[in-house]
């Protein structure tokens, strides 16, 4: 299938995947990146585009549970897979995820542009390694750059979230 846009024919293909736990079925441009699909087709604008080149991590999303740069994944590569964005990080949308709360409490956010990516990376890190120490946290965030904070408050935010999640897991 093709549509005409700005005098160019654009090829479309059906994409079925799960985004933030919901089944999504949409026609998508075959050459589109996952990042653009999320932002412009699904209007999930929490995921940001920084460099668009795999350097900064502002576009981090979870693809089948693993954090990746959404600017380096084609939308159709997500076919049949699960995508989680910052909008779906908390199981209950009315309650913030401990990481989100941590960033607020510790003042880890300045301009905020990098934070969705930071949180997605950290969520995957704490899922894989719930006891992550400061060194592990630093390594786990190696793909996410922040130009405002100098990182110290971000590390504190993640450590707060880790303690909170540990408590929650212990109570289960």
């Amino acid at each position, binding site marked *: 299938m093709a549509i005409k846009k700005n005098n160019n024919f654009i*090829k479309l*293909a059906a994409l079925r995947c799960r985004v933030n736990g919901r089944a999504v079925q949409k026609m998508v441009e*075959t*050459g589109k*990146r996952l990042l653009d699909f999320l932002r412009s087709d699904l209007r999930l604008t929490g995921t940001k585009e920084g460099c668009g*080149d*795999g350097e900064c*991590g502002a576009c*981090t999303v979870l*693809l089948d549970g*693993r*954090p*990746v*740069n959404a*600017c*380096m*994944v*084609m939308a*159709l*590569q997500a*076919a049949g897979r699960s995508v989680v964005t910052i909008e779906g990080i908390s199981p209950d949308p009315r309650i913030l995820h401990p990481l989100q709360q941590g960033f607020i409490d510790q003042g880890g956010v300045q301009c905020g542009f990098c934070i969705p990516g930071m949180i997605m*990376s950290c969520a995957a890190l704490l899922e894989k390694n719930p006891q992550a120490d400061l060194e592990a946290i630093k*390594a*786990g965030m*190696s*793909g*996410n750059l922040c130009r405002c904070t100098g990182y110290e408050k971000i590390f504190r935010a993640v450590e707060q979230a880790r303690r909170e999640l540990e408590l929650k897991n212990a109570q289960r």
Partner: protein
Amino acid sequence: MLKNIEVFYFPETVKDAVRLLNRHAPHAAVIAGGTLITKSPNLSTRVLVDIRGIDMDYVKVQAGRLRIGARTSFQSLADSKLLQKWAGGALSRAAAAVTTHLIRNAGTIGGDVARALPYNDMPPVLMALDAEAVIVDGKKTRTLPVEEMVRGHMWRIVGRRALLTEFRLPSETRKRACAIARFARSASDWEAMVHAVASMEKSRGICRNARIVLGAVTRHAQRFPQAEAVLEGKPYSESLAAEAAQAVFDGLTPVSRASAEYRREVASVLVRRAIREVWNENETQQ
């Protein structure tokens, strides 16, 4: 960006993937992790063959040989217990040093070799461990040393109709000592300035089967037989390492990025360090 893509295919077998590549050549390309193809796309590519559904994500030993599926991600290589023991864990360490965890989760070892940019991290280590690439081309399956694979983009070497499926490392490389000395502007920079790998067997204080490989300095990762010859059959000493490093310095003509003088200097220093490290590491294994 890959604006010209018209069709995406999801084959589930190697045979189907090769058939699709043949049907759409030369406009078809393989996509696995996507980190290289989205970064530097070829505008003539109109068909993408996504090999995610094919069972090419494994690290295993069969008949003594190590087999690594071409679609294995850098992170899986870094986490592989088997790889952490093979040749002192060199491949696993090299994979763990690939830029950031976001790239390591997506990028694959096959892409790193098929799209062999001069600074890619895996080819020098694979070459130092005598790895062969398995290529399925139509009805034929053939093997090619990684050293030959990386002389240019894969399609210049084996054509656009072939699929790289696996890497095989000979059983004798399991006990080989291997050290990597990588220098980049920052630890997470994908483009190393100089990447030196040394590997050898240490047999009763004598260097055997020495391999010296440099990445990121010339157009493709390159072995240095002159430096290897210096080491071969001799007992290790600091002056021997210096002599091998000098052979690299004399035989190297670096291209692009930073001055040639600077890179030759850094390359020879890193080669000396890698040889020293390889000699001093895991003595007890011998």
